[in-house]
């Protein structure tokens, strides 16, 4: 806090404050000399009186000095600056970084303008209010924070032009991340430092108290959301199983959320390739619903999937996209010669969508293979198997006597011990929590996946915390594990020879095997990305000399092609994109980019929920004017002068009366 003066030239007149003292001394009436018989009693009287009178005289002098000072102050025209030193006294200009929320929610319209339009207006006002020596920067909040200058600069005009030129994005973003960048930019700058956050402060993206305010930095929050916009959005879209086969049933699930305080009825249109399904959805207030559609497509290939709500006030999140790749069949192979391998082979043949072969040598492992089951693996060609899982191949291994390197990759302490007889035979159990792989059996309507008895067993020796168990012996020993770091790698310890276990003889075996086979394979295409993503993809997955990226309108998006990865040069807005072989025109990959679900909640938080420790709340840029330009104090001083004069008169009157 400091003071400045509009008329500092009058400062030399300050000694006039002593005028009341001089007047007080000079204006004292000259006493009339008078002889008096004795001062004995008078002195005693005055001593008694002085106890009351002297403070009153001092009070009078004080009041007179104060009103003189107040009147002098009126002419000096002081201004009160709550933070900045007054002009002429500061050694450095102010450094201000405006964190401007440019995420999708800021496109929501309130009245005649969007939240972003209001935010840019306020930001421009703030920038205009800075002095020529002040430095400023604007960091736009989007998927990656976007600073307009590498560090705060003095050219505020350019910043104003830029924020007006650049629209709000359809991306999500982290206010806190942008704030940290702003704090970093201000860290070594001298003078007063300030960060102003202009945002709609969505409940899902803003966490009060999470700001780590650096010492000496003033933080202001300027919320631009004035009202809660009732909004419904498609917040999720998925295909189950994620990698279906042509001719096989698959399910499309769409999540609809209602961010309004009233129940809503909306119409959802699901498009899968050429097929269109419409659903009426009743949404509870602040609730959600899932729309499910079971479909079957006969033709293999990439298929776009969209879920679209009828339009509302915020249409950006009413459409969600996903990319589906239908395979013509699943190519599976079995390696091994024991009874277990034989039973796996027979089980695979039970599924018409699966073309099965026996793989004699692991050296012959084909890149086109989708599923591989190995029984009695001795640890050879670990490199080939590792590459197979890394490109999404589903691998089941029943270890034989692998070497140490193979054990390490499998997540085993050592090779399984020798097969021992269990007497009495052991039953099987499903661990808690119920594994997602076995979800078909969770409600019990399709039997139990843990039926059957185990007579002989070679126990697995997994390293701690490396696997998720799927089936256990009654003793708790795992018989079926899923590797946590390589989710398509499964370990199996049970011999399926009927003399050793009866699991494969149960009616639940084929459904159990099918669930694993179809449900555990990863989607051929990666999951949809959020807007602002660059759709990076490994070169191994784009086997083309000249790949190109196109959106659904056929527009080319420039690529950054590295040695190992290919990515779009610019952050991508929501849409369906195709990586294509430029030479052949073949579609290599279909990708979906969606609006981040967090951007759909357009609730305006009340100010008390926004306030964060170390930050101050503002309602508009004009609030800064008195802080920047100072608050004129002359009206206050004038009022004080009147009050002091009035008090002086009262004290004088009381003195005379007494």
């Amino acid at each position, binding site marked *: 806090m400091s003071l400045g003066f509009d008329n500092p030239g009058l400062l030399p007149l300050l000694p006039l404050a002593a005028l009341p003292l001089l007047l007080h001394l000079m204006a*004292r*009436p*000259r*006493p*009339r*000399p*008078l*002889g*008096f*018989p*004795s*001062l*004995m*009693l*008078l*002195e*005693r*009287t*005055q001593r*008694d*009186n002085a106890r009351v*009178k002297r403070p009153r005289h001092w009070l009078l002098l004080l009041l007179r000095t104060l009103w003189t000072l107040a009147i002098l102050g009126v002419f000096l025209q002081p201004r009160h600056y709550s933070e900045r030193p007054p002009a002429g006294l500061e050694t450095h200009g102010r450094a201000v970084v405006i964190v401007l929320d440019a995420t999708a929610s800021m496109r929501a319209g309130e009245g005649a303008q969007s939240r972003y339009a209001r935010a840019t207006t306020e930001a421009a006002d703030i920038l205009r209010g800075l002095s020529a020596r002040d430095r400023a920067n604007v960091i736009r909040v989007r998927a990656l924070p976007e600073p307009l200058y590498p560090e705060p600069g003095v050219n505020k005009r350019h910043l104003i032009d830029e924020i007006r030129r650049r629209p709000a994005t359809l991306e999500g973003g982290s206010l806190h991340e942008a704030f940290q960048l702003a704090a970093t930019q201000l860290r070594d700058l001298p003078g007063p430092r300030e960060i102003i956050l202009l945002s709609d402060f969505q409940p899902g993206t803003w966490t009060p108290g999470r700001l780590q305010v650096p010492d000496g930095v003033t933080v202001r929050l300027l919320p631009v959301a004035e009202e809660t916009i009732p909004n419904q959005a498609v917040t999720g879209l998925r295909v189950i199983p994620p990698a279906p086969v042509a001719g096989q049933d698959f399910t499309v699930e769409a999540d609809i959320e209602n961010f309004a305080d009233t129940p809503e009825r909306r119409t959802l249109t699901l498009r899968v390739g050429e097929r269109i399904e419409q659903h009426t959805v009743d949404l509870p207030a602040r609730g959600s619903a899932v729309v499910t559609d079971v479909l079957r497509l006969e033709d293999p290939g990439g298929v776009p999937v969209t879920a679209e709500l009828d339009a509302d006030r915020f249409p950006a999140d009413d459409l969600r996209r996903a990319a589906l790749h239908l395979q013509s069949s699943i190519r599976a192979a079995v390696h091994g010669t024991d009874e277990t391998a034989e039973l796996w082979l027979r089980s695979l043949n039970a599924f018409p969508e699966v073309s099965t072969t026996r793989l004699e040598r692991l050296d012959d492992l084909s890149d086109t293979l989708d599923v591989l089951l190995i029984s009695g693996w001795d640890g050879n060609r670990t490199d080939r198997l590792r590459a197979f899982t890394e490109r999404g191949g589903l691998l089941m291994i029943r270890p034989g006597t692998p070497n140490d390197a193979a054990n390490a990759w499998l997540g085993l302490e050592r090779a399984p011990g020798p097969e021992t007889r269990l007497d009495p035979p052991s039953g099987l159990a499903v661990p808690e929590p119920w594994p997602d792989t076995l979800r078909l059996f969770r409600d019990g309507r399709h039997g139990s996946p843990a039926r059957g008895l185990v007579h002989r067993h070679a126990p697995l020796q997994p390293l701690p915390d490396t696997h998720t168990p799927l089936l256990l012996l009654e003793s708790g020993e795992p018989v079926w594990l899923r590797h946590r770091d390589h989710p398509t790698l499964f370990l199996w310890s049970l011999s399926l020879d009927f003399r050793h276990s009866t699991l494969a003889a149960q009616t639940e075996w084929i459904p159990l095997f099918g669930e694993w086979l179809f449900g555990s394979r990863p989607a051929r295409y990666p999951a949809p990305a959020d807007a602002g993503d660059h759709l990076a993809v490994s070169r191994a997955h784009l086997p083309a000399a000249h790949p190109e990226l196109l959106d659904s309108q056929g527009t080319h998006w420039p690529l950054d092609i590295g040695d190992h990865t290919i990515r779009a040069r610019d952050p991508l807005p929501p849409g369906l994109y195709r990586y294509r072989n430029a030479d052949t025109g073949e579609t290599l990959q279909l990708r979906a980019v969606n609006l981040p679900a967090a951007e759909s909640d357009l609730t305006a938080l009340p100010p008390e929920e926004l306030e964060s420790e170390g930050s101050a709340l503002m309602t508009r840029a004009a609030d800064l004017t008195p802080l920047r330009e100072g608050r004129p104090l002359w009206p206050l001083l004038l009022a004080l002068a009147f009050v002091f004069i009035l008090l002086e008169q009262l004290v004088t009157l009381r*003195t*005379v009366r*007494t």
Partner: protein
Amino acid sequence: MATPRLLTPELLRELEKARFAPRTRVEGQHAGRHSSPARGSSTEFRDYRAYAPGDDPARVDWRVYARSDRHVLRTYEQESQTGCVILLDASASMNYGDAPTKHRFAARAAACLVHTVHQSQDQAGLLLSRDGEHRWHPPAGSARHINHLLHTLDETTPAGATDLPASLRHLNTLLNRRCTLLLISDFYCPPADLFSALNPFIHKGIDLHLLQVLAPAERDLPEGELIAFRDLETGLKLRADPRELRTRYRTVLEDHQRALRELAMRSGAAYKVIHTRQPVLRALEGLIT
């Protein structure tokens, strides 16, 4: 005989039939018309009393002292001619007030008393205390003496500072017999000091009369906004606004007078306050009839 300046014809007319009437029996060297309670040195023994400071050591009964190790004085019954001694404070503080000044008023009262005492064929004495000096006129009854006293009273001008307790101590050495003692002053001294100095007189059984003479402005303080009060005796100055002090000053003055009155009552002395605007003979009520 009397100087017209103090004793005007009107006063003399009023005093024509006045007689000196002390409150107690008086002690005198000469036989007179008053019964004296003084345990004097005549032939008829009356009582012993304890020695008090100021008593003539020659009157100590040494035989009693030899027997009891106590200093006691023998006293005797006697008929005496009474006396009246006036101690007049003629310090500068008495030179205050308008027509008349306190001193002029006090001198006139003293003159009236001297005249009346003489008219009653008694003796009158005077101690003038002025500027630290004491002019002593021992009690006597001759016309010449009385005339001299009246002239002295008339011509004395007040000056200097007076230490009343010191004057009383001086008078105690001069006054050996019972009489009526009239102190005329403004009594600007601590009451305790004054009555400490009066103690020997009380022990001697002297009939004490304290007459405090004040000018009206002393009671109410002069009018005006700010006054540089100058002490008439010491010359010290004090700036004060009478408007601010008046109420409190009255209280302080009343406290002072109350203290004098209470001590006088305890000592059996008469205490009276008289203002210079009052009739002068009112000052002598209780002393003359």
